[in-house]
């Protein structure tokens, strides 16, 4: 009774296994046509992504000693400048960096200092200065600040991430079809849900987006079959399959975005960064997550085609991890981490923000990378320069009470 298209089915299985979820916000009515073409993709790496492995400061004299066996060896790392490199799993990102289309902010953090995943993610996604400062997501409020008239929002993934929750109803979709039940049922339910503040908008929005989702996946046919057969080649086969899936998901999301009325803003979540034990170095648990991230980004890049020139991708996490290796071959909850910026709309340049170094007196509370850049400042710069969001609104509505946090300039 339920009809699935193979590619959507594959995506469902795959997205679940990778801990990936995706959300979209549709296009706002930007006055400026050029601004209306621009795209922003945020990727929230949940669990505390280890900045010192994502962009290892292999030229920092204290790095290797602090990190011990989980230090990324300088000879394996992909060199960016005299101090920084990228993790060897991020080959695609490195290729972009060589073209001036990828940059790092190596010592960035949200204003939260509690080292709790949930609190820190809430602060990052809400855009507040403190936890529970605001109940909606800053991307949702940013669209309002842009004077958005018809904002359509879509989240792909079974649960809605805070970053795009808010006063504007956001749609959501995840791979796997509705099936062909009674054509009357949606109408009957819409009547019964009338006036129900939770269910009425959710149902309406869910039904509308089914059609759009179908179009997006159909336009990407041929990629759903790209998954390796499960079980082939043991663990390495699983990793290859994960990479293929992440790349396919990236291309599918890009397919949504390049439709005439496709979403302009997308929020993706990637889980699995809480590496307390056996995180590995050039290879291992964390390297596998980074391979998936690299594949996801490369899928977005390929799928967006010419639109990549109008795109900025921000990869951010709720906090970094301890500078020292812990007793179990991993790292514990820390503070500063790395954010990645990518996209054809980026201005080339070096690292974003200052590097505090890893000297023991420079570490935050003698354990973490000291943050020198406020995450809100980075997003302010991107939202203002890339999407033309009003600066006063950024200081008050999008990031409440943040007038003292300077927008990062010269990135876009």
């Amino acid at each position, binding site marked *: 009774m339920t009809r699935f298209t193979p590619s959507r089915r594959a995506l469902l299985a795959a997205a679940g296994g990778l801990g990936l979820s995706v959300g979209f916000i549709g296009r706002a009515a930007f006055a400026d046509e050029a601004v209306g073409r621009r795209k922003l993709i945020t990727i929230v790496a949940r669990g505390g992504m280890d900045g010192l492995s994502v962009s290892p400061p292999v030229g920092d004299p204290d790095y290797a000693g602090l990190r011990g066996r989980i230090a990324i060896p300088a000879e394996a790392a992909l060199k960016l400048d005299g101090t920084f490199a990228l993790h060897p799993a991020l080959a695609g990102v490195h290729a972009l960096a060589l073209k001036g289309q990828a940059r790092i902010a190596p010592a960035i953090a949200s204003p939260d200092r509690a080292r709790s995943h949930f609190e820190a993610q809430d602060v990052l996604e809400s855009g507040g200065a403190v936890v529970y400062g605001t109940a909606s997501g800053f991307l949702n409020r940013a669209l309002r600040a842009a004077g958005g008239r018809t904002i359509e929002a879509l989240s792909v993934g079974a649960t809605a991430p805070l970053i795009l929750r808010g006063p504007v109803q956001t749609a959501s979709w995840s791979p796997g079809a509705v*099936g062909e039940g009674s054509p009357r049922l949606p109408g009957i339910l819409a009547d*019964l849900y009338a006036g129900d503040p939770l269910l009425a908008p959710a149902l309406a929005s869910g039904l509308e987006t089914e059609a759009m989702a179908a179009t997006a996946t159909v336009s990407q046919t041929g990629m759903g079959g790209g998954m390796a057969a499960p079980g082939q080649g043991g663990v390495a086969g699983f990793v290859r399959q994960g990479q293929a899936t992440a790349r396919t998901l990236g291309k599918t999301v890009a397919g949504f975005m390049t439709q005439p009325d496709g979403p302009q803003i997308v929020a993706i979540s990637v889980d699995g960064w809480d590496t307390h034990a056996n995180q590995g170095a050039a290879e291992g648990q964390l390297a596998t997550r980074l391979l998936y991230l690299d594949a996801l980004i490369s899928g977005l890049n390929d799928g967006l085609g010419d639109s990549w020139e109008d795109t900025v991708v921000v990869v951010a996490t709720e906090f970094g991890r301890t500078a020292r290796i812990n007793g179990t071959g991993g790292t514990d909850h820390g503070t500063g981490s790395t954010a990645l910026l990518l996209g054809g709309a980026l201005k080339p340049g070096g690292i974003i923000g200052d590097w505090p170094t890893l000297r023991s007196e420079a570490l935050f509370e003698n354990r973490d990378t000291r943050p020198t850049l406020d995450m809100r400042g980075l997003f302010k710069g991107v939202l203002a320069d890339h999407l033309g969001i009003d600066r006063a609104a950024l200081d008050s509505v999008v990031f409440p009470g943040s007038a003292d946090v300077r927008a990062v300039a010269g990135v876009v």
Partner: protein
Amino acid sequence: MSAIAVTRFGLGARPGELADVAADPAGWLRGQIRPAEGADQPQAAPETAMTRLQAFREYRADVAAARREGDTADRDPVQIAARMLREGTAVDFLARARLAATTPAGFRERWTLFWANHFTVSAVKLITATVVGPFEQEAIRPHVFGRFEDLLVASTAHPAMLLYLDQAQSVGPGSPAGQFLKRRPRPALRGGINENLAREILELHTVGVDGGYSQGDVTEFARALTGWSVGGLREAPAQQGAFLFRANAHEPGARTIMGKTYRPGGLDQTGAVLKDLAVHPATARHVCTKIARHFVADDPPPSLVARLEAAWTASGGHLTRVAEALISAPEAWEPAPRKFKTPYEFLISSWRAIGGQPAAIEHLAPPLRAMGQQAFSPPSPKGWSEEAMTWAAPDAIIKRMGWSEGFSAVVAADLDPNAIAAGALGARLGEPVRKAVARAESRQEALSILLMSPEFQRR
């Protein structure tokens, strides 16, 4: 009253249940509290966590051997692992769902599921993938109407928790084992402290993130917890896969945690910390707020939290007293349903409504995954969300609708939808839904409407 008792406090009404409860709904709920026995056990003779962990470790040894011998064709580790996960976990999860779908004591089971979620162990980690079911049976179910302290100690000391939150390998640097390991030439084998479990006990299990602890308290608690471990393949068979206190890995010395100093004492030292955390006023506040949020509203009335807290404090954290206070609280009986069912609650209550139960894991696991609640796999130690906003995303509503239609297509043929609607919701069934069910063009459509109705989706 009976509809609220059975749907909000319980897991949904089975046919005829509302009539049985009508005479004394509160008494029906109180009668489900079993201080001595605790919760029901889904399986009479389950595999233990110990057996499962031993099997897992043998499997790992096999993998290593296979690698050495270059012999991966016959013993593909991925396939072996996949089979272990499928079989053990599926049996546990199905048994648990069948208990929930059929129990006449729905409140007892909901109360139990709350505690299992409070002390989350998730199958997302390979080593704990097969022991979530045993963890619930062994550490949670016996203690849900006992003292909170006993539940806290049982969950903290269970191998599943020690492995899930990386405690098992944590070694005190000043302990004999730490000193010995420090001399090893390879840094990989030198060992040290892991603070994951200590932090989550404070943040999630006891005092809560606003409970007044600092990073220093987390680190001190992590030092106190060193030595709490799980027997490995080198231990005697009786210790393999079981809780093991490694005295030689325990960091020596006194510890100061949240302003109190604990004298040296190995296992007793950590026991004293857990005991104090269990009766800390911030723990009463944090956990009672969670109970109120689970049973009554995402944003629970402060007066209800205060009642639960008073019962908790007066009894020293006796969960029977807290359950009784919940049943007696007028705020818990407000007619308007404010809780949106999680996917698991939705599926279980659907089976209960028709008087059925899931026959195979294939009927459960795929829809739960599609609706965002993969079996035994909460995404983090915080457990499943209690918020309607998480579960009522547009896509999830569409998925629920699709599942309702599929479910109805299979089961509706011999049912009377009007009777099912009255039996499932009783006084909570509103006139528009009653009419829509009665006017549906087929039994299938009628049952789908009922399951997707605003009153059935909530409790």
